[in-house]
């Protein structure tokens, strides 16, 4: 199963690097839903998604999948702070996408229940949408 998936990844247009028994992928053009379908069909499962804000504009999303004990990380970016929800394909993504929505202000189009998860009472901008500044203890050396 993994060999077949690796052949597919190598043959297509993706940047695929193996390191420490883990695979790191960057897709030239692919939607989150295409990626989720590919891993689901390969017998994979979603571990989680990591959001990351570099510039304060678009958000980078790292999708972490496990196929038979081999970890894959797929790097995708939002467009206009929007990306397709993979919850209809992998229900395990439901809470993960809701959390990223409130942390980073990302809209997951097609999410079946886009409610707040942890910050229902939070007011103001999404807390992790801009790079973190100021060190802990910096003002109190």
């Amino acid at each position: 199963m993994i060999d077949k998936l690796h052949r597919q990844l190598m043959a297509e247009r993706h940047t695929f690097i193996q390191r420490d028994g883990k695979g790191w992928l960057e897709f030239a053009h692919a939607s989150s839903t295409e990626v989720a379908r590919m891993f689901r069909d390969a017998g994979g499962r979603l571990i989680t998604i990591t959001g990351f804000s570099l510039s304060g504009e678009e958000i980078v999303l790292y999708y972490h999948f496990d196929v038979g004990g081999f970890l894959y990380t797929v790097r995708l970016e939002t467009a206009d702070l929007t990306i397709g929800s993979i919850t209809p394909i992998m229900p395990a993504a439901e809470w993960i996408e809701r959390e990223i929505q409130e942390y980073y202000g990302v809209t997951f189009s097609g999410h079946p229940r886009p409610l707040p998860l942890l910050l229902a009472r939070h007011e103001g901008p999404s807390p992790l949408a801009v790079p973190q500044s100021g060190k802990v203890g910096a003002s109190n050396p």
Partner: protein
Amino acid sequence: MAYRFPIGPYHPALREPMVLDLKVAGTTVQEAALFLGYGHRGIEGLAQRSNLYQNLAILERMCGTCSHSNLMAYCQAIESIARTAVPLRGRYLRTILAELERIHSHLLWTATALDSAGFESLFLHVLEVRELVLHLLETICDRRLHYAVCSVGGVRSDLAEAEEVASLVQALKRPLYLALDAVMHDRSMTSRTVGIGALSLEDAVVLGVVGPVARASGLERDVRKDAPYAAYDELEVGVVTQSGGDVYARLIVRLLECFESIKLLERALEQLPGGNYRYDTMPPLLVAGEGISLVEGPGGENFCFVKTDGTDTPQRVKFRAPSYANLPALQRILIGQDLADVALIIASVGPCLACAER
């Protein structure tokens, strides 16, 4: 006629704050929805404003029952970015601590479920056994829960009490057998657990549950075996599974895993190699990169992702605790269950909100 039955955020049936919004007909649950956010501490944001070493103290305090697992996951991610290897003795000592943590955590959740089932005498017996493990951890680390032993590059201190650990591990077996026997055969217990709160194998796969909850539904998934870390590649890890997927199966998996942990501890202590338990000289850690680490904590898979830019402060630290993967499954498990069993079912899943909310 159906009615809404809200429980929480603070309620005796819940161990930690959350809201459980149930739709009930008679006493049967028709729908269940969970609402979190009452214990959120912003730990990931804090970790991105703290340096790599401050984070050791912060991340270990994310949770009490899997503090070592979280910390080990973080250290492994940093070591992966720096492309360094931990000395073998350090890996063994991490493993020994991880298995002791697994036993005390499993016993805590077993005791919690027994308390919810009203089996007070067995509840106290299991807590008494757990106390032996905590006492041993205090002897080794000077702390009962947040051990501050694991660090980048190995562990902070050597194990001088190997014989004491070996002797206590032996002493755990008999009281654990008594607990297992009662959970398996006592009718007042089995009448509350068998067939209650079942999660099918199909649902376990689709919902992505992990750890004892997944293994109780027949899903043979364990990071220690699937992608070994620390010293697990040198120890033979036995994966415990059950097929019922119910409260009974989850209790049995946790108790049997205590025996597996005892076997691993015996092997690890017997094979404990000499040499250094941490780096001789600290390699350069301030390099840019991305590191991922998976650890099989007591509740299941602890995932950690770290992104660094070559400074002493990480750009991103992400944790996915096992309870974060397991809690959504409660919304499926509770459907069709009796209202009186809700507290017991929740306890059987091991709902650690401190980890889930961070």
